[in-house]
């Protein structure tokens, strides 16, 4: 009893130290995206083509290109010198890069150097993230009692969602502590600078941790790899498992994760025209309600096997994405709603600009189900250039529509927890200790960084094409990307993954 309690206490310490560090890494990674609008005005002015080019690189490169390289670089190190030291390095690298982004003078002060330095630091963030996750998942899995890896590693799986949360909360608190001008002037740097403190705390906790017992044993027996990269990808036997992990699990998981957590947000804001604050709040509530299911499905995968838990998530996603998004679209589709004509409001405002003036006409329409549509038409009247008109729609919902939308997003979060909860344990178990860090990190980061990361761009492309061709359901066209990827992944996973793949390394 005492030994069991001590052992449980020990694993909680391992989980706490690993999860905190990984959570901070996700926080660091997401803070850049959450503050992208401020960052672009400070470092990447759109009127400068070079800066705009660097901005695009910073956005794409850190997410897609560098993460798999980080997985290879740090995965190799982790298999050579150990998990603990490697993911300490990735933590310091991520924290240092984030802190330095907060210190860089703006484009106005140092010119071209500002976007260039931000790009370099953003690439370092991507590298660090590529190395961190595999290390933390491997470290926890190798500490876990037999038959409980799904449950214990699922705590690591919650960190990506919590990292996004914390980043939003820190920004929100910083914004409320100062006025808009202060935030725009220097306040936006606070979330970046705060990272140094968080990383230091995490470092203090992590530095007293022991190396993973499985790696320690392999090292003492001289069974560690001399060349993890060659053994992982140059050896046909291992390469076939890397490919199976990618095409039979990680690829589908990546697109389901990005659809539920990011595409849904973009859909609410740009297609449904939902008010930004309301969309953020709805996603936040759904994420909060869904997060415990990472643990539940991680635990379940210990009982019934990883494969079918993950594949159930993919199957449900590919079968229900279109009906779910159709329902979401209809929630704000005012064409099917009854307007309360008596409550219609109209405002007119004239604002002087540098080149002339803006005539702003705002129409506010109320509907019987509580929906409010605000349409703002701005006529830009210029003395020097041609006049132009821009229209913006903003919708707020309430009552049952609000609850229903949370439910629809929550369902997608459940799919995420199904595919993502058990995947760390799955990836760890299909590779042997000596090449585990390297072999599991690469398919994970290709699945998430490349297949998942490209989802917004590819889906937007598909939706735009459908709109150009006058497809009545153009707003659903972007879903073909996650549906097709999930379908292929489901077929490969269900046919080619079998228990003997991971039973040998359990």
């Amino acid at each position, binding site marked *: 009893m005492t030994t069991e309690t001590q052992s449980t206490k020990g694993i909680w310490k391992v989980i706490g130290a690993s999860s905190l560090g990984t959570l901070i890494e996700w926080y660091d990674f997401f803070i850049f995206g959450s503050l992208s609008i401020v960052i672009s005005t400070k470092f990447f002015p759109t009127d400068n083509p070079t800066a*705009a080019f660097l901005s695009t690189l910073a956005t794409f490169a850190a997410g897609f*290109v560098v993460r798999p390289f980080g997985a290879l670089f740090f995965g190799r190190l982790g298999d050579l010198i150990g998990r603990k030291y490697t993911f300490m390095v990735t933590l310091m690298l991520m924290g240092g890069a984030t802190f330095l982004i907060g210190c860089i003078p703006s484009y106005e002060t140092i010119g071209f150097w500002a976007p260039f330095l931000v790009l370099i630091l953003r690439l370092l963030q991507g590298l660090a993230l590529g190395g961190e996750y595999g290390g933390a998942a491997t470290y926890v899995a190798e500490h876990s009692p037999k038959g409980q890896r799904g449950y214990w590693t699922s705590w690591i799986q919650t960190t990506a969602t919590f990292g996004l949360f914390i980043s939003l909360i820190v920004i929100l608190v910083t914004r409320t502590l100062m006025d808009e001008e202060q935030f725009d002037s220097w306040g936006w740097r606070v979330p970046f600078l705060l990272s140094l403190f968080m990383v230091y705390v995490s470092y203090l906790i992590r530095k007293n941790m022991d190396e993973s017992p499985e790696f320690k044993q392999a090292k003492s027996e001289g069974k560690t790899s001399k060349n993890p990269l060659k053994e992982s990808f140059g050896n046909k036997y291992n390469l*076939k498992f890397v*490919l*199976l992990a990618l095409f039979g699990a990680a690829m589908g998981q990546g697109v389901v994760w990005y659809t539920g957590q990011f595409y849904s947000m973009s859909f609410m804001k740009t297609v449904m025209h939902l008010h930004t604050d309301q969309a953020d709040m709805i996603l936040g509530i759904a994420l909060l309600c869904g997060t415990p299911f990472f643990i539940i499905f991680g635990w379940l995968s210990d009982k019934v096997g990883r494969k079918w838990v993950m594949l159930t998530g993919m199957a449900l996603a590919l079968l229900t994405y279109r009906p779910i998004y159709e329902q979401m679209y209809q929630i704000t589709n005012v064409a099917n709603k009854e307007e309360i004509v008596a409550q219609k409001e109209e405002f007119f405002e004239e604002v002087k600009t540098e080149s002339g003036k803006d005539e702003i006409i705002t129409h506010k329409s109320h509907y019987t189900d509580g929906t409010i549509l605000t349409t703002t038409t701005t006529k830009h009247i210029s003395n020097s250039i041609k006049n132009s008109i821009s229209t913006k729609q903003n919708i707020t919902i309430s009552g049952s529509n609000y609850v229903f939308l949370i439910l629809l997003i929550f369902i997608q979060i459940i799919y995420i927890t199904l595919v993502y909860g058990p995947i760390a344990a799955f990836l760890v178990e299909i590779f042997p200790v000596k090449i585990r860090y390297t072999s599991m990190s690469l398919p994970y980061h290709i699945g998430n960084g490349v297949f998942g990361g490209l989802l917004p*761009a590819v889906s937007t492309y598909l939706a735009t094409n459908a709109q150009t061709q006058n497809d009545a359901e153009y707003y659903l066209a972007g879903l073909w990307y996650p549906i097709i990827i999930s379908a*292929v992944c489901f077929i*490969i996973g269900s046919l*080619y993954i079998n228990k003997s793949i991971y039973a040998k390394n359990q």
Partner: protein
Amino acid sequence: MEFLKKILGIVWIILALATAYFCIVQFGFPKLQTGHQEDLVFGLIIVFILTPIVSIGLGIFGYFALKGEYDESKM
């Protein structure tokens, strides 16, 4: 089941070739030719990152499947 896994190997290879065609001809090159810098970066990523991973990776996976490397006895 083992037979089905092998036969599907051909499907994966065809899918790899189809993806290469779609990514390069339909998606990648048109992006590279728009003249917008954002599209240029995106096009480069499609052509030089996504296409090799999907096409070569899926092609090798299909080849392994066709050769019976994923048979129960070889796992």
